[in-house]
């Protein structure tokens, strides 16, 4: 099994949390995983990207045009980071605006559930988990969410995750 995933967003939006959840899920399944993150200057509101490589890789970076899957926490960074995707690979975007990608209205879902804005990311993750193609199933991710999120965010994260999951199964 080899899968390369990018997670793109604006600094402070929560890309790191999603990266860690995916990595934990891979490790829990006994898969090799290596990730890379953006820190420092670019975290201050700039476009940031994390990479998750599942399988027998050595390096943490994904070459341009090689990612199997892209998670975009906003459509704003789509132009900047889409070139990492393989031709034809799916981009999943958390936005209300439709386009040439799969989208789920993460911010809208979070607002409707009365959850803070960061919950939109978990809705996106749930949405992606519900569609085939990810190295792990929704149950594995849900388990990691249960095990690894600090208690005060746990319910909120699970709620948002499930909401995203429902959207994808409804499609």
């Amino acid at each position, binding site marked *: 099994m080899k899968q390369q995933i990018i997670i793109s967003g*604006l*600094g*402070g939006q929560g890309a790191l949390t999603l*990266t*860690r959840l995916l*990595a934990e899920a891979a*490790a829990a399944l006994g898969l090799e*995983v*290596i*990730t*890379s*993150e*953006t*820190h*420092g*200057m*670019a*975290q*201050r*509101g*700039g*476009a940031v990207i994390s990479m998750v490589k599942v399988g027998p*890789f*050595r*390096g*943490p*970076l*994904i*070459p*341009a*045009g*090689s990612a199997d899957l892209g998670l975009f926490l906003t459509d*704003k*960074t789509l*132009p*900047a980071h889409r*070139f*990492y995707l393989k031709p034809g690979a799916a981009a999943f975007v958390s936005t209300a605006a439709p386009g040439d990608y799969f989208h789920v209205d993460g*911010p809208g879902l979070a607002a409707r559930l009365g959850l803070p*804005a960061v919950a939109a990311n978990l809705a996106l993750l749930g949405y992606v988990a519900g569609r085939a193609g990810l190295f792990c199933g929704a149950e594995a991710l849900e388990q990691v969410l249960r095990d690894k999120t600090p208690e005060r965010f746990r319910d909120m994260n699970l709620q948002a995750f499930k909401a995203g999951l429902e959207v994808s199964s409804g499609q």
Partner: protein
Amino acid sequence: MGNEAIARGIIEAGCTLAASYPGTPASEILPAVAAFAQETGVSIHAEWSVNEKVAYETALANSMAGRRSAVSMKQVGLNVASDPFLRSAYLGVKGGFMIISADDPGPHSSQTEQDSRFFAMFAKVPVLDPSSPREAKDMVGKAFELSEKYELPVMLRPTTRVCHARQTVALSPPEILDRPARFEKNPGRWCATPQYVRELHRQLNDKIARIAMEPDFAPVFTPGDGSFPGVGIIASGVVFAHAWDLLEDLGLGGRVDLYQVTMPYPLNRDFIRRLEAQYQRLLVLEETYPVMELQLKSDKVQGRLTQTIPGEGELTPEVVGRILEKFLGRAETPGAAPPGGGVRPTLCAGCGHRAAFYAIKEAFPGGIFPGDIGCYTLGMNLGAVDTCHCMGAGISQAAGFYHAYAAGGGEIPAIVAAIGDSTFFHAGVPALMNAVMHRARFIMVILDNATTAMTGLQPTPEAGVNAMGQPAQPLYLADLVRACGVKFLRECDPYDIPALMSLLQEAHRYCRTPEGGVAVVIARHPCMLDKKAYERQPVYEMCVTEDCTGCRHCLDEFECPALILNEGTEQVVIDGVRCVGCGVCSHVCPGGAIEARRRE
């Protein structure tokens, strides 16, 4: 994370003192050392020193007392610590001593993309170059052993990609070394005067020659299957990992001879001989300077010196991929090109620095604004930072600009240097003393957010807590400023822009009086990332009224990420998600179109 893996290695190796100054990409090492020490019940002195030189010397003394010590910093931090670094190679160490100097090829978050391995070669200190977090952790223990065997400092040089990569690593229980502090006096060594230095240098040369023959640190060989006779690839650090993955992708994994160099300096003697004897064409992949290449001194080698590899910038997989394809005679795969632009970084919504910069710029439209290193370098986007050099440089540059204009005889513009609180402690104090002593006249604004924000909220000396979370002796900015001989000192919260502007005018008048000198204004507002401080500040409901003319003043001059232009109405709207309700923008709109109402 790579930095956490290194920290874990430090604890497992029985290190008893770790010192650091925060700087991306090395910042997460020290907090993780403190956390692992607490978790495993190990006793260690972990400190955020006031700067890298101090960190280095503090850790060095612990080693001279026979105990294992580590000092971590970013690559430019080693410039600050270069004085003790170079000398300690000659004098050597007792307890294992490891320098972690994290490089930033690219660079992503640094003033230079210098190669610490080159610095190690200059200092004659062995350097290890990990390709992954796992390797970095393993190398820590080896570094301490090597250091003790030869009584020499050893450098570990991770790069950003290793520091910020995550991987599962195996944990071992910490080694408990029963080594009470015991400093043995030896003036010929520890105070070496020039007459002894020559002998110490001879010993150092001898040590390096012997380390170059250490079998444990020889390159790791992955043989090819003979498809490429006489051809070899040599790589170190994370570029080795990229090369490995790329060769796999190209279907060439295990087909061409591949060497991973784990110790790029001193390069293994036998390895150099073997390459010379067995190969016709060699490719050397390393970041960012030609350290191995210079030691190979062979015309069979292609690398940076032959311009096969770009002389600058990060060796990303895209770059390495093209080089490999060319070197191995494969057709080039057309690469997807990254588009230019993107979203540029900016100060956080509600950041006190933005308010301070706005006030400075509005107060002195024709001013010169020397800046410094930190989040506030982003003030550049606002046109309130004209220079950015190295830690503390803004103050000396302000003095230099003053002297330049004063001696030139023309009109002297307002000069306002802005420096963060942490940076002021780090390198600002000597600069301020010097400026005052030489009667420079300028305004220095200390942007005090009570933390080292850019690198992740490490406590500053004012906080009165140490890296372990225990009480420490607080040091106050105001006391230091006065002790430097400054006669004009005022403080205010930059959120109150009109108040700050009038303080700045007052400071300016002081600078121009006959007895005037350096005027200091401390602009104090906690960092927005400090959640506890944020909870204490009043929050406002913001609204933009119909009076907004769409003049863009707030967008261009203030640049809060929560202020956006509604393209349809050509008026500004507030992004409710990003706005933190600081209320500052209400001072910014010239037409008073932004209103703030206190939220209950």
